[in-house]
């Protein structure tokens, strides 16, 4: 890859050519078609793209949490501290899950067990990875609830999820994920299911805790606005591939891929009230069941020319620390 990976020991997670397929009755869905990126220690990396572009599959592939019967990561490497997560035994990957790489999910309403208390579920995360007594684990849960700013943590420790709002449950998920002080937190659309006020609060909480604990965050979202507020670097995904990556300011100032430009045009402008209809990118996303010839964005791309439909563009640097997979990035930048 052409991105600067030179500061090698600063790289926490290095993903190369990741290929994940889903196996249906008669067809294979190529959900990820060879994606490569890295996460540096302590940074916040944003992953954006429309729904269905493979963001969740990327996250689940890293922790090997895909449904066992229907999905398989068929190629690539996921380097974490020198070892390839894809090659670890089931036992070894379990030691990493929740302890060194933690994850929070999009659906706070269904992601907690309804029949266990919140304190119990956080304490469990601690006890799986450290030899501590039950009471010490509960003490840690209490501390975590305080840290994610849940009012009356003493009482909430013994609450069940159904007694809490969506925002509060997402705070509990964050508490649980950070209980073992992981090096990397994968946050898969953690605010998408919440209302706007709650979204802002949860975002602030994640950024704040990340800074305090020095955790690197992989922040997955379909909302470029969220990326602008939280991330240092951004990856843009389309149809199971990475189409652009750059520092966040650079990306917003000079998008080098037509898809990124389209996403920006359809961004809600926060100054102009919320509910105005946005110009969506016209056209449909290609099916991942058939091999894609040429650039996957070509059917929707205003810049498309003949070569786009024949040969898939690869990632190349358009500027320092800024790469895009587009034959016509220079024209796009100039436009």
């Amino acid at each position: 890859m052409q991105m600067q990976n030179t500061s090698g020991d600063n790289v926490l997670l290095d993903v190369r050519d990741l290929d994940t397929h889903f196996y249906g009755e008669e067809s294979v869905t190529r959900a990820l078609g060879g994606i490569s990126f890295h996460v540096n220690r302590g940074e916040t990396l944003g992953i954006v793209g429309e729904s269905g572009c493979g963001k969740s599959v990327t996250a689940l592939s890293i922790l090997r949490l895909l449904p066992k019967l229907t999905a398989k990561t068929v190629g690539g490497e996921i380097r974490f501290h020198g070892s390839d997560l894809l090659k670890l035994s089931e036992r070894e990957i379990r030691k990493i899950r929740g302890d060194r790489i933690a994850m929070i999910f999009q659906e706070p309403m269904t992601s907690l067990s309804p029949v266990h208390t919140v304190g119990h579920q956080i304490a469990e995360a601690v006890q799986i990875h450290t030899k501590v007594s039950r009471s010490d684990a509960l003490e840690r849960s209490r501390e975590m609830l305080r840290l994610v700013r849940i009012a009356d943590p003493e009482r909430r420790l013994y609450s069940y999820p159904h007694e809490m709002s969506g925002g509060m449950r997402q705070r509990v998920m964050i508490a649980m994920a950070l209980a073992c002080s992981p090096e990397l937190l994968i946050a898969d659309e953690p605010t998408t299911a919440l209302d706007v006020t709650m979204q802002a609060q949860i975002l602030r909480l994640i950024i704040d805790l990340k800074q305090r604990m020095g955790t690197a965050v992989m922040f997955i979202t379909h909302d470029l606005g969220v990326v602008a507020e939280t991330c240092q670097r951004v990856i843009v995904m389309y149809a199971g591939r990475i189409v652009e990556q750059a520092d966040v300011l650079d990306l917003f100032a000079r998008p080098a891929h037509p898809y990124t430009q389209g996403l920006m045009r359809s961004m809600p402008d926060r100054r102009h009230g919320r509910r105005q209809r946005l110009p969506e990118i016209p056209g449909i996303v290609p099916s991942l069941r058939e091999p894609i010839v040429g650039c996957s964005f070509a059917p929707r791309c205003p810049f498309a020319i003949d070569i786009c439909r024949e040969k898939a563009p690869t990632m190349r640097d358009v500027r320092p620390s800024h790469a895009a997979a587009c034959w016509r990035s220079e024209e796009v930048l100039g436009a």
Partner: protein
Amino acid sequence: MGGYVCRRLISAIGVMAVVGVFIFLLLRLVPGDAAAMMAGNNATPQEVAGIREQLGLNEPLTVQFVQWALGILSGNLGSSIFAGLPVLTLVSQRIEPTISLSILTMIVSVTGGICFGIFAAWRAGGFVDRMLTAFSAVGYSVPVFVVGYFLTYCFSLGTRWLPVQGYVSIGQGLAPWFVHLVLPTVALSLSYIAFIARITRASMLEVLSEDYMRTAAAKGASTYAMLFHYALKNAAAPILTVIGLSFAYLIGGVVITETVFNLPGIGRLVVDAINNRDYPVIQGVLILVSGLYVLINLAVDLAYRLVDPRIRY
């Protein structure tokens, strides 16, 4: 919770009262003269009159009922016409084999059924799962006495590994007691294992695809913890229901099993009482069994509350 327990207790008492009335009327609604039937064909009129007197059939119906109900409330279930002994004494003489068989059967059925169901769900479509399908087809359709005689043929008559029939009291040693109960327990357990395993599998399968199971996996939980800790508690409500039902149906199976293996238990007591038309014994055992049913129901309802905090009464 306290209020709920109170309400449930009151309704349980109501149910028992209704059941009591029916059991009381049983003797009075039998076509023909119950006393004459009990006395048999060769009885003299004096003997019939004596039995009628003993059963209190000469009093008005309401007086009879009040006397009978008061007797039960004070722990007097009446006396056997034939043995001349109080029903409670007869029951206590016969209770040990029945309780032994019931408890062993429930332990085997619940642990066996739940483990079988969990493994079938964990590897749905796999070997264990297909075994369960075949096993439950047999468990459901082959009656207890066929299984019983088949097992006796294989393990007792053929190989002489286990006793053919009979019972040894636990007081005379744990090993002989256990050895005599192995075949009856296995014969009786098969259908309950199948029943509990099917429901466990279905309930677990649903839970295993829930989001919170993925959360548990993301925490680094082991397969064992995922299945037995997170999933089982979430899947518990329907499983508790079938366990309760199995307990309730157990009594019928116990009667047959006791007959097949010649165990001197409550089942045999009832069968003998029916053959002899010994109504006080039949009524007494019915009252006890109905009471047990009501208690099991109550226990299952309260257990729901323990496994699922979302249930509010």
